[in-house]
């Protein structure tokens, strides 16, 4: 069960959300394009660029080298021609070898077929040139210098260099052309990337738009779920009231009838059946209400001192009749090591134990049921208390134990048909024990019985003062006014109150009640809440506004609306407590006794406190009741010293102003009204820069009030 019904509903009502198919396909295409297309194009372009660049560099280097060697060679041959120097000619032939090497490197560098043709031309021209140069060399070697000079080689040399120059130009042309190709590839790459980016953008847009739609849907569903949860809570409250009101009639009249001695035995048995059936129905309604409150985390524990022994005794005696009817042995074992009192919610603990006991009796055909409580260990002021409910009943298979604690589940569905019940009992038990920070476990063997074990860490409560006052049965003869507009409920209340010996008057409206309270002295009012016209809450408020004793009469709300926030609203309206409908004699008596007892105690307090001049002892006592006395003593001493200092006029103006401010509020809280008023008047004068002589004089007059009034009152308390 989830804690937030809103989210649960949202999760159920919507299938798992998915992004649109289009967006996913687009995203895949984009990723494919970017990863394959982009990388491939980049590799291709990069490789070509590298080849072209290297080739171009090599061509340029070779061409430069050839020009250089050629020029050098011309110079050497020229000198050889003039001097007829054979050594120089040999040098020229070595240079010629270099030229060839460079030419063959140029050939390797050239990758374009057309350039190869140009290169071959260049090679041919170079061969002619070389042949001519060798001829010239032979002529020089033969000493025919004249003939050698006459041999003009310049045209061949120029033709060769022209060819080389052409190779260079072609190579540059080739680079430019390839560059164009590369430009194309680069642009294609860019286009692919752009396209992919667009796809990514479109995908993101689609996804975000869809996500926003989801967010809006979730918000709407959450809101709807909240409204639904509130409606469910309201519905439960209404239904609880609507079911309890007629039940009040059934159980109440059955109760009253059973007291009627004129019934025949058969009639008495039948009325007993009516009462039993009504009580069972009430138990189911209570289970459902408890469960929904636990589910909505609206159930609060009412922590007060509780005594285990009495509580467990109660439980045994409540289920005793059931056990006797089935001839089961009941036993109770309470560990003497248990402290007298622990802090806990007695009603809720009793509810859990009763539930376990009545389950045990229900599922035990023969043998017995035992209840025990013991202290397992203690740490500091805490005891780990183990409560066990063991039976010799039909038991349950180990694999179904956990299922048993789930709501709406019984060990097999046949059980609910045979034994009845809402199926919520154990689930409520576990949640209540969870709420008490304890654990509840079950050990069982089919056929050999079951043992439920509750483990609670509880704070010992040794303080006898914390013990709640026990009021016995209501003292008979109280004058009680019942305000109730349904005749049936009026009659039941009247019957039950009369049975307890009270003298009762009834009225059916808030207006009449106020009039009756103004005139007559009632000791208690039982107030229905939902009445036509002025409702119970409004009536209670107006009663509290009445002057004198009439305004202080204890009022108990008598209502089927028993959710905690509803009960709180009754207390806020000035009522003193509530009795739940359907009315049960025992509960009614106890509530009335408590309310009457408390009001007597209050009356005694009021008698003690007569207001003396300028000092409200009741106000002082209220503070003294909650502040530790040594602390109060210190504060009184400080207040007294500060007051005297200011009265003597010893402090500078700013400190005086802060001081009287403090005195005004403290004295007011302590009931020292004369001092408080004087302090406030002086503060006003100083704050507004008005003449303060009169105010100072008044303040000086009241300056001793702390010691005069409050101190003796405190000392009396310290002595007591």
């Amino acid at each position: 069960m989830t804690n937030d019904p809103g989210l649960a509903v949202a999760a159920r009502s919507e299938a798992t959300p998915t992004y649109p198919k289009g967006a996913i396909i687009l995203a895949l295409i984009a990723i494919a394009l970017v990863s394959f297309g982009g990388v491939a194009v980049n590799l291709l372009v990069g490789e070509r660029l590298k080849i072209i660049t290297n080739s171009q560099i090599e061509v340029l280097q070779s061409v430069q080298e050839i020009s250089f060697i050629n020029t050098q060679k011309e110079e050497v041959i020229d000198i050889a021609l003039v001097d007829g120097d054979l050594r120089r000619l040999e040098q020229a032939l070595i240079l010629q070898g270099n030229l060839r090497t460079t030419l063959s490197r140029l050939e390797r560098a050239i990758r374009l077929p057309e350039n190869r043709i140009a290169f071959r031309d260049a090679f041919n021209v170079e061969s002619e040139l070389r042949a001519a140069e060798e001829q010239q060399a032979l002529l020089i070697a033969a000493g025919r210098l004249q003939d050698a000079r006459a041999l003009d080689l310049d045209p061949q040399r120029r033709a060769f260099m022209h060819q080389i120059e052409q190779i260079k130009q072609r190579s540059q042309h080739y680079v430019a052309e390839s560059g164009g190709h590369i430009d194309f590839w680069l642009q294609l790459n860019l286009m692919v990337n752009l396209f992919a980016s667009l796809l990514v953008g479109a995908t993101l847009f689609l996804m975000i738009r869809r996500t926003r739609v989801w967010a809006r849907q979730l918000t709407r569903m959450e809101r709807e779920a909240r409204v639904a949860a509130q409606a469910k809570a309201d519905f439960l409250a209404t239904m609880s009231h609507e079911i309890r009101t007629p039940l009040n009639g059934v159980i109440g009249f059955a109760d009253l009838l059973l007291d009627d001695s004129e019934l025949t035995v058969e009639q008495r048995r039948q009325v007993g059946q009516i009462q039993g059936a009504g009580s069972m129905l009430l138990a189911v309604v209570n289970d459902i209400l408890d469960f929904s409150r636990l589910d909505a985390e609206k159930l609060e524990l009412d922590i007060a001192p509780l005594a285990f022994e009495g509580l467990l005794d109660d439980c045994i005696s409540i289920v005793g009749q059931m056990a006797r009817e089935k001839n089961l042995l009941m036993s109770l074992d309470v560990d003497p090591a248990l402290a007298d009192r622990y802090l806990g919610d007695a009603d809720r603990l009793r509810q859990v134990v009763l539930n376990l006991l009545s389950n045990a009796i229900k599922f035990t055909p023969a043998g017995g049921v035992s209840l025990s409580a013991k202290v397992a260990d203690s740490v500091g002021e805490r005891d780990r208390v183990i409560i066990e409910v063991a039976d010799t009943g039909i038991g349950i298979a180990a694999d179904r134990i956990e299922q048993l604690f789930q709501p709406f589940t019984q060990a097999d569905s046949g059980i609910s048909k045979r034994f009845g019940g809402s199926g919520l009992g154990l689930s409520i038990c576990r949640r209540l024990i969870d709420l008490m920070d304890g654990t509840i476990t079950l050990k069982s063997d089919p056929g050999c019985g079951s043992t439920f074990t509750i483990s609670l860490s509880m704070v010992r409560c040794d303080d006898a003062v914390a013990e709640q006052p026990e009021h016995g049965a209501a003292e008979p003869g109280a004058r009680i006014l019942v305000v109730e507009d349904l005749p049936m409920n009026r009659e039941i209340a009247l019957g039950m109150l009369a049975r307890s010996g009270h003298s009762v008057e009834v009225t059916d409206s808030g207006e009449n009640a106020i009039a009756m309270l103004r005139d007559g002295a009632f000791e208690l009012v039982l107030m229905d809440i939902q009445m036509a016209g002025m409702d119970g809450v409004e009536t209670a408020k107006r009663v509290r506004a009445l002057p004198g004793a009439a305004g202080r009469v204890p009022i108990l709300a008598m209502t089927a609306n028993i959710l905690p926030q509803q009960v709180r609203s009754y207390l806020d309206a000035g009522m003193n407590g509530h009795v739940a409908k359907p009315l049960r004699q025992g509960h009614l008596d106890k509530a009335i006794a408590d309310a009457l007892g408390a009001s007597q105690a209050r009356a005694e307090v009021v008698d003690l406190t007569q207001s003396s001049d300028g000092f409200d002892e009741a106000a002082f006592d209220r503070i003294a009741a909650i502040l530790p006395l040594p602390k109060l003593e210190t504060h009184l001493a400080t207040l007294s010293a500060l007051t005297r200092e200011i009265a003597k006029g010893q402090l500078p103006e700013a400190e005086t102003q802060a001081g009287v401010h403090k005195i005004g509020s403290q004295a007011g809280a302590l009931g020292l009204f004369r001092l408080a008023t004087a302090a406030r008047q002086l503060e006003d004068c100083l704050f507004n820069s008005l003449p303060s002589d009169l105010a100072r004089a008044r303040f000086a007059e009241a300056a001793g009030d702390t010691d005069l009034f409050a101190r003796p009152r405190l000392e009396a308390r310290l002595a007591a």
Partner: protein
Amino acid sequence: MARIIIADDDEFFVDLVRAALEPLGHAVGALSDGDNVSAVVNRKQPDLLILDCSMPGKTGIAVLREVRASKTYRVPVIMITGRTSHADEDIGYQAGADDYMRKPVDPDNLVVRVEALLPEPLRRAG
């Protein structure tokens, strides 16, 4: 059950608040001047803040405005005032105060007003 911070230099009042609230299971922390209240409140994130209007250091209203500047966390605030005119209260309520109480404060009344501002699970049981 709730964590409550009171900012007031009046030790008597602080003791009174402690005495009224601690027996109900609430934890009460006290600060005696206005300067670091908002820092402490934002760090500790108490369930309720009781703020005196006149303290040494920053005034209660200034502290209230600082505390309300937080966008993520809204602590219920009860303003305590010694001398009050309705104009002062209007300013306080506009600045985001949830309740105003005038000294002298009746302890029973204080308990009711404090519990009214606490979320239901933190109130005293019953």
